[in-house]
């Protein structure tokens, strides 16, 4: 047997600092470069953030998302027409094509399509983002606890989710939204109705990922060190189970915006004179062959929003995996 490798000093050049069992040379110095410069220790999240800022997909998706957010908060920055003002619409000009001052033309009621789309962003994005956040937090938290604890906690939580799974989501949301209609803000009601029925999906994915992760030896090693449940769940299991939840969460975002449209169509979601992309799509359906733009424009905005969030989710997922950096 050979002698033990002597400890190597910190100041030696790269080739000499490799211990002799480095037959497979590790990847060249890439991670932690910034951390070394600032002298701060690297961690998964700081390295991920450093990596994200260099990803084109992240930059592009963030630009789109920031524009959409600004549009939701201050729609008047994007258009001088106020779609809530009845005088801005003119039935005589209904379904007119694009013209100067009305870039996308007019809808079935002769209102400016561009202004309505801009003002509709707020409701659609608020519903999409908040429902995604709520379902991810509720489903993720329950999933991680049930997956880690297993036993009776898991059994009870899983049976409850199965009950929710058995409810057809649009019918269930319709029921919730119709029952409490008028008592609460209609946007809030849509968010709650969709969240109540949406979290079991995230729960299942999180639980499955946690069960896979917890059987690995590093969890046993953490227990042997005396780590508590909180540390094991949030330092070890969560980062290793997040990838699939992020993917599902971002795809769900689009589904929720579309589900809001279905609820509006059924008369329980956002109602006129409020504007949302879902509502606009629902209104434009009847005259689609005559005038496709009133349907196409909000649909394109919806697709761009969903695409931006999916790109963001992919970038975050990749940045959180050190092997992919």
């Amino acid at each position, binding site marked *: *047997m*050979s*002698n*033990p*490798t*002597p*400890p*190597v*000093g*910190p100041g*030696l050049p790269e080739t000499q*600092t*490799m*211990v*002799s*069992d*480095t*037959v*497979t040379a*590790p*990847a060249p110095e890439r*991670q*932690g470069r910034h*951390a*070394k410069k600032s002298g701060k*220790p*690297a*961690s*998964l999240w700081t*390295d991920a953030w450093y990596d994200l800022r260099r990803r084109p997909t992240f930059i592009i998706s963030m630009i789109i998302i920031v524009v959409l957010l600004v549009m939701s908060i201050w729609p008047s920055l994007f258009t001088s027409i106020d779609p809530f003002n009845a005088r801005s619409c003119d039935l005589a000009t209904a379904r007119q094509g694009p013209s100067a001052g009305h870039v996308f033309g007019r809808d079935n009621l002769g209102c400016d399509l561009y202004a309505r789309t801009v003002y509709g962003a707020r409701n659609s994005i608020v519903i999409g983002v908040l429902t995604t956040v709520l379902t991810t937090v509720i489903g993720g938290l329950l999933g991680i606890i049930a997956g880690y604890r297993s036993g009776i906690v898991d059994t009870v939580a899983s049976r409850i989710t199965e009950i929710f799974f058995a409810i057809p989501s649009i019918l269930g949301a319709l029921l919730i939204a119709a029952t409490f209609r008028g008592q609460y803000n209609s946007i809030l009601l849509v968010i709650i109705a969709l969240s109540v029925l949406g979290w079991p999906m995230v729960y299942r994915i999180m639980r499955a990922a946690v069960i896979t992760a917890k059987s*690995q*030896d*590093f969890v*046993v*090693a*953490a*227990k*042997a*060190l*005396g*780590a*508590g449940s909180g*540390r094991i769940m949030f*330092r*070890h299991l969560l*980062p*290793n189970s997040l990838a699939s939840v992020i993917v599902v969460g971002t795809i769900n975002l689009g589904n929720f915006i579309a589900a809001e449209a279905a609820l509006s169509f059924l008369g329980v979601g956002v109602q006129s004179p409020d504007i949302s992309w879902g509502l606009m799509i629902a209104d434009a359906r009847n005259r689609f062959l005559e005038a496709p733009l009133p349907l196409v424009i909000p649909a394109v905005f919806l697709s761009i929003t969903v695409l931006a969030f999916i790109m963001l989710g992919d970038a975050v997922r990749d940045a*959180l*995996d*050190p*092997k992919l950096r």
Partner: protein
Amino acid sequence: MANGGEPVLEVRDLVKHFPLNQGIVFKKQIGSIKAVDGVSFDLHRGETLGIVGESGCGKSTLAKVLMALERPTSGSVKIGGRDIGQARGGELKRMRRNIQMVMQDPYTSLNPRMTVGDIIGEPYEIHTEVAPKGDRRKKVQELLEVVGLNPDHINRYPHQFSGGQRQRIGIARGLALQPEIIVCDEPVSALDVSIQAQVINLLERLQNEFGLAYIFIAHDLSVVRHISDRVGVMYLGKFVELGKDAEIYDRPAHPYTQALLSAVPVPDPEGRERRERIILQGDPPSPANPPSGCRFRTRCWKAQEICAQEEPLLQIRPGTGHLSACHFAETHDVVHAG
């Protein structure tokens, strides 16, 4: 015993049974897997106790019970006079500082999403009293140096290291709290032979440097012989033989040990011809339903009536110098090495 003085670890009549349940709602216990069934030994400071045995004999369960990852069914595991099997909460956490673990698989035992600095520094985050916050990074770098890794690689991730280097990271994590005892559960069986030697030598150097006591579990008999002061041979949850390495390897008294040793590959063609081959018949019995009396009797060529009726105790037998659990124990050199 190899070293005098108070033992750092005292294990007495340790038993771990896993219940076998039937039914989904109304669980009924229909039996139990007797993974560890009455194991006793002492471990002294700076000593290495090797534990060998075939797969499923309870080696890893023993390690888990010693680490308090599983609660013993009965018996005691005393570290510094206190029973870790009974300890709870804060006391258990404090006791963990004294016994740490090096795991088998260097690929799954390190969290892939933590930097090396976070992995080795985690013991200090859990046991905040060991090192003040400002010192932790320096301590982690010292540990990296101690195990022969570049301290500048503190911000790297496990996948950027080779298997041997990862095992060094695992060893550094085990050393962080300066324990007296390290349980090594097959620490080299996942590594290439050339790297096995480096890791074994590292473990030996650390033992000399810090006075560590090792429980070294392996199924590779030559590795165990190289590192151990004493060796325990396990069969179906029990020690069948326990003694100094030379006693076990050159003068094995239990037929099972003799059979195990006869299976060790001998590199020298001359020695290979002189060596006896004892081939055991059948498979090990199920630990859920072990044979009466001596557990090895179903595969033993010496078995008599008494073996089925009376369980042989682990004691010094006439004509042998160390503990063995066989009614017909007699020393017999199977390897004829040297």
